[in-house]
């Protein structure tokens, strides 16, 4: 049976998610007053940007058949660092660099224990999740920052600014998407990430250092959480002890929805961004339709299960 690569496109998860997105946009557009309102759209895109950027990192992690529930805590710490250095008057490019560095460092903690010692990712990241959250508390001294004194305008501009009508965080997200699309497709180490998730033994035999790949992937994700943390501090103008708490749910949901298989080996950055969009649209639509925000966990949880089942059915079908 000829499977043309053209027709292959229609069977991808990305395509399905896009269709669902369009349907939802139409649905919400017609049933609510404000969905298609430009300020709502801008708001939506802002929310998508932090989740989307983080989901790029989560995607690479889940491709290696790992998981990272410490994303929110890493984001929190970077937000604190960014906020405090902003208050101390550091230039924004330096703060940005610091955000990347701190994120990478924290990610390397996960990466080292997972890649080189070999402890299962769920245990490690559960541990770092709570430990780092305590560090957030410690760094803030139990207070919050950003309201008095407020963050300098230069710092706030990144999160709240607009460039040719599109919020800056969205530009950052798009830029990162392009970078990582390139990296995962054209750099050998990017492909080794897929290889590790597909068949770890084959990868080892081919001479790929699986330990280094795993170590590296968590560092990469840490940096991306760092960017998201920077943006969140800049956008919301406040950093508290619970900044980023629960963030990882949305990120994992976005990644899994977008077609990244929880068992590893496949997934795309574009898919995860679409997944993030879908999650954000659903949340936004729910608010606009006056559905209680309490339903959010229910719906997102059900969506995660639904998409995993879809993955399982697809795998079973392929096996026949």
């Amino acid at each position, binding site marked *: 049976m000829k499977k043309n690569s053209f027709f292959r496109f229609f069977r991808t998860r990305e395509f399905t998610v896009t269709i669902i997105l369009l349907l939802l946009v139409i649905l919400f557009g017609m049933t609510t007053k404000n969905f298609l309102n430009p300020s709502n759209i801008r708001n939506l895109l802002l929310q998508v940007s932090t989740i989307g950027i983080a989901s790029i990192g989560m995607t690479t992690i889940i491709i290696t058949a790992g998981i990272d529930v410490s994303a929110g805590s890493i984001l929190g710490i970077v937000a604190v660092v960014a906020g405090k250095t902003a208050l101390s008057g550091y230039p924004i490019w330096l703060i940005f660099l610091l955000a990347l560095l701190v994120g990478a460092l924290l990610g390397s903690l996960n990466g080292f224990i997972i890649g080189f*010692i070999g402890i299962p990712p769920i245990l490690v990241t559960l541990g770092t999740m*709570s430990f780092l959250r*305590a560090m957030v508390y410690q760094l803030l001294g139990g207070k919050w920052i950003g309201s008095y004194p407020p963050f300098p305008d230069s710092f706030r501009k990144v999160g709240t600014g607009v460039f040719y009508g599109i919020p800056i965080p969205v530009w950052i997200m798009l830029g990162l998407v392009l970078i990582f699309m390139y990296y995962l497709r054209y750099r050998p180490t990017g492909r080794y990430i897929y290889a590790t998730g597909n068949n770890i033994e084959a990868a080892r035999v081919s001479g790929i250092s699986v330990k280094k790949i795993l170590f590296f992937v968590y560092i990469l994700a840490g940096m991306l959480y760092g960017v998201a943390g920077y943006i969140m501090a800049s956008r919301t103008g406040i950093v508290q002890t619970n900044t980023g708490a629960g963030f990882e749910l949305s990120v994992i949901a976005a990644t899994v929805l977008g077609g990244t298989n929880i068992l590893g080996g496949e997934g795309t950055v574009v898919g995860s961004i679409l997944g993030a969009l879908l999650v954000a649209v659903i949340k936004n639509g729910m608010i606009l339709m006056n559905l209680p925000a309490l339903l959010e966990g229910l719906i997102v949880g059900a969506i995660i299960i639904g998409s995993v089942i879809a993955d399982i059915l697809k795998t079973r079908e392929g096996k026949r």
Partner: protein
Amino acid sequence: MNRFLDLIAHNRNILMLLLLSLIFLTFTVLVPHFFSMYNVLNMTQYGVEIGLLAFAEALIIISGGGGIDLSVGALLSLTAMIIGVLVGRYGFNIWLAVIVGLGASGLGGALNGFMISFIRIPPLLATLATMYIFDSLALLVSVEPQFGNPMPISKFPDSYFFIGQSTIFGIPFQVLFIFLPIFFILNYYLKSTIYGRFLYAVGINDKAALFSNVPVKKTRFSVYIIGGILVGIAAVIMTSRIASARPDLGLGYNLQAITIAVLGGINIFGGEGDLIGVLISIGIIVVLYNGLQLAGVNAIWQMGTLGIVLIGSAIINYLLSKRKLYVISLKNSK
């Protein structure tokens, strides 16, 4: 290093008891009011609730195949809210509400078990999703129809409180009549019954279990239901003790339960570990938590410490099993 590992491997429970005593003593000395009747009572009461969750987690992890349950805390909140709301808002008889609550928690466990055993959704993802679903449901249930806001509820009848608040010869009721019996029953189940054997078999090698006529799917399914019921019992005890129900009652409990299980020697890959180690581990964690709290350490740092303990125990377990394999391969090559 290797001698140290061997020492731990052969005397794990004893060492943990020593650790428990050490921590207990340290806090007694350093923290005022730690070693008081009131506080010890407090600790044991709290220990029962988290302990039941830890038992649930331990059984689930023993069953192998990536078994884990991230939703125990959320299920606790949900069950507590259901009981609280049935009694407080709809005037149910308390004992009827308790039965419904237990049924609900059993059903929650069954949902997890069904998705994991029969649909083959990886346990991590399934229970991550149900964690958020149960949390959300707990919030929903807690919404007062008039106010539209999630609210805690505190309308329990006095006849309910003996479960969580009464003592007999100074020992809390729930310890004597619920926790200890359950511990012995579960231990008996694990060590002496055919179903316990099946659990270990499935956890060690589910393929060999299949080939040996062990019902793999049913065994894994039932262990999640048992977990759910244990969570329900914990919810009953807790609501009886604090005389109220809040939708975030179980916050952070999944981390505690998993940490206790791992510290207690339950192998994250399945098939290994027993409840005695878990029991001692409950003691360690509860004492640690309580001591830190009394010492004025913020709740967030309590969780943070737990995170360190989790990673530390996981690493020790890992080193222990590597050492074990090495020793075996040495013996075999002779």
